[in-house]
């Protein structure tokens, strides 16, 4: 198997008429990485993928695969293989013919093709199913055939365009693990497009979060979740409670934000913004629901929030408590289910506590829409 090949996007801008789908994207993907582009639909992530696979040329900038400029090289000449969102298996060909299509167009004999297809079928645990038509397979099986077909072309880079979106939840979770395993086994670079943060976080070495054609942050899954560099990333990846306000004071990597509704709150500044925030700036502070806990009623400090309970929901493994928050948004607190009947009563005034290291502050900006 070929080892991973690096993919570099240098100042890529892609325009369709007046519309700019991707704006000045710079991404360096290491060889052998599982790299994800995460963003809401319409953010330009598929456009980037199409630029890498060669179906469209960037208006500006360069795509480099293994350090080689891909300008003017068509999709059939690039060392990439794309797995389509709808899989795009050839409906009139048998499964093995589908898998060995790349060898067929390269002129391999039927015997060779069949042999290679059977090897790949064994790898994806579909041995003996080669003579079926794609329509006779289940969703998950089709999925694996599509992967085998792409791998059969021996690509240096495998591109996946939301390949799991059509599957049901159980299968999706299973395929996540499987994809990750396949990637480790073949060792080539995977570029994965998704709007599902769960997929991005579980599978990827690195994630690029995109918003409206702009890459907001490129980081490991952990950092994306814990140290979001913009309000969009903070609110798009996972659930988050937002507190708006102004910077009251800054102490190194920590800041006190005087929030509109919950008084002065202490938070650390997200790493990317340390040293860039000024006292008096508009700021946003984020605390995850699981970082909040009930505080003793008399506690009053810069890490306590007091609010009225609006609603409570039982979610099985946890309780979600919704409290009256800032700007019409509710504050959500997640409490593990340890056998309690309930956490709070409607209308009750609760004090919540958090650890300042679990709160991140950053300059105010646009949030992800619900």
């Amino acid at each position, binding site marked *: 198997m070929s080892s991973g090949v690096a993919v570099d996007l240098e100042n890529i801008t892609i325009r369709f008429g007046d519309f700019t789908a991707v704006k000045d994207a710079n991404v360096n993907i290491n060889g052998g990485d599982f790299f994800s582009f995460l963003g809401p639909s319409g953010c330009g992530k598929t456009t980037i993928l199409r630029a890498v696979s060669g179906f469209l040329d960037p208006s500006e900038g360069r795509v480099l695969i293994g350090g080689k400029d891909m300008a003017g090289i068509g*999709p*059939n*000449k690039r060392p990439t*293989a794309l797995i389509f969102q*709808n899989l795009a298996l*050839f409906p*009139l060909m048998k499964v093995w013919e589908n898998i060995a299509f790349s060898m*067929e*167009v*390269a002129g391999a004999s039927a015997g060779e093709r069949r042999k290679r297809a059977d090897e790949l079928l064994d790898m994806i645990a579909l041995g003996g199913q080669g003579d079926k038509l794609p329509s006779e397979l289940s969703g998950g099986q089709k999925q694996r055939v599509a992967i085998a077909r792409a791998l059969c072309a021996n690509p240096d880079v495998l591109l996946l365009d939301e390949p799991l979106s059509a599957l049901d939840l159980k299968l999706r979770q299973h395929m996540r693990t499987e994809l990750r395993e396949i990637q480790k086994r073949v060792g080539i670079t995977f570029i994965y497009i998704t709007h599902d943060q769960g997929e991005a976080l579980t599978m990827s070495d690195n994630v690029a979060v995109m918003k409206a054609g702009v890459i907001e942050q490129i980081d490991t899954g952990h950092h994306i979740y814990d140290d979001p560099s913009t309000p969009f990333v903070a609110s798009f990846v996972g659930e988050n409670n937002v507190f708006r306000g102004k910077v009251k004071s800054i102490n190194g990597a920590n800041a006190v934000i005087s929030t509109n509704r919950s008084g002065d709150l202490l938070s650390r500044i997200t790493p990317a913004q340390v040293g860039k925030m000024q006292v008096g700036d508009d700021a946003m502070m984020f605390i995850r629901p699981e970082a909040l806990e009930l505080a003793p009623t008399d506690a009053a400090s810069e890490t306590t929030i007091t609010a009225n309970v609006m609603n409570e929901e039982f979610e099985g493994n946890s309780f979600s408590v919704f409290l009256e928050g800032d700007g019409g948004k509710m504050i959500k607190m997640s409490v593990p289910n340890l056998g309690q009947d309930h956490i709070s009563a409607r209308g009750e005034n609760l004090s919540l506590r958090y650890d300042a290291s679990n709160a991140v502050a950053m300059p105010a900006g646009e949030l992800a829409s619900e």
Partner: protein
Amino acid sequence: MSSANLIRVALGAYLLIFFSYLLGPLVVMSLTAFNSASFPAVSPWACFSYEWFEVLFNDKHIRDGIYYSVVIGIGTVILSVSMGLAASIVLTQVWPKLRSTYYTMIIAPILIPGVVLGISTLVFWDRVGAFLGVSDGSLLHGLFHNGIFLTILGQSTFIASYTMLVFVARLQRFDTDLTEAALDLGATHTQAFRKVLLPFMRPAIASASVLAFLASFENYNTTTFTILEYKTLTTVLAQKVRLGINPSISSLAFIIIVLTIFAALAFEAANRNKDRKLAAAQGRGVTQKSGILPSFLTGNPAAVVLVLLAFMVIVMVGTAQRYSPEACKIAVREAKQIEIQKRIDALKETRRQKEDAKAAQQPSNAAPATPNNSSAFGNVFAPGNLSGDAPEQKVDEPEPQSGTGAFGNVFAPDNLSSD
């Protein structure tokens, strides 16, 4: 009778009328093919006979017509299917704002009368020849004035539009991701077309070919202008209708109907077979052969009728080897002669009675010069007329060259030379 029953009866009656309207002419036409009478007719049934099939097979004009119709049909299929396929693919690729204009342009030939297409094809290629300066007798000149070449081009101008409609309908269901997937896997554009798009289009190509062939085969109004010295079945038939028709045309129609039925049967059987295989492959609906009938017949009365018809045809073809209508024909002829003889006798009798009465009355009472005749056509069609054994009948026939014809003999060939 309840209203539900009434509705059922009305529906049945309606269906009966509808199908008689639809199929009645075909049935009547088929029957006339087997009547030995020399004009396509059912009601004075003479003899059951296969002679018109023989006449048909011995008719060189019809044979030539069929041959050229098939040749032109094949040419038109090849040309119009490739043009239609190309046009439909362009339609899916062309810039969206241009699409409707392009579509209208491509579809326009359907709306233009065939006559216009025929004349313009003729004129256009003549002009092309003149423009290129091809000389008389050169290969290109021969081509531009060749009826087969011109007819194929003329018919394809509008048949290509039909085929394009078929292709567009199929293409709309094509997932363009498949082409991209093929390209992505290293296929060239040609390979992607040949290995992915073309197999997908195959059913549409088949139906477009059938459509194109039938449209070409039955076309008259374009062909009649472009065919020049050649002839197709339609032009031969048109000529025949003008010059006098006989039941060999019915027998041709019968053959076409039978071929259609067989084709339909074969197609249906193949389809059902495929469905069954597919169902078996997917492990659902285990098919069991019920009784003696093949499974596609059960619960399909139309198929049963078709099989019966097919069986009838086989029986007929079988008996045609032995059956001879001569005995019947002689019998019919004799019956006719006896009939005629009877009429003649009756006529003689009445005349004799009249003469007797005249003789008995005043001779000044002028009798009509021509003898009265009971038949509307004055028995001119009676087979015995010309045989000479009934001289009395000849009185009815107009005197040749008497100058009393409908047009006063203005068309007589010697009219102009005489003065």
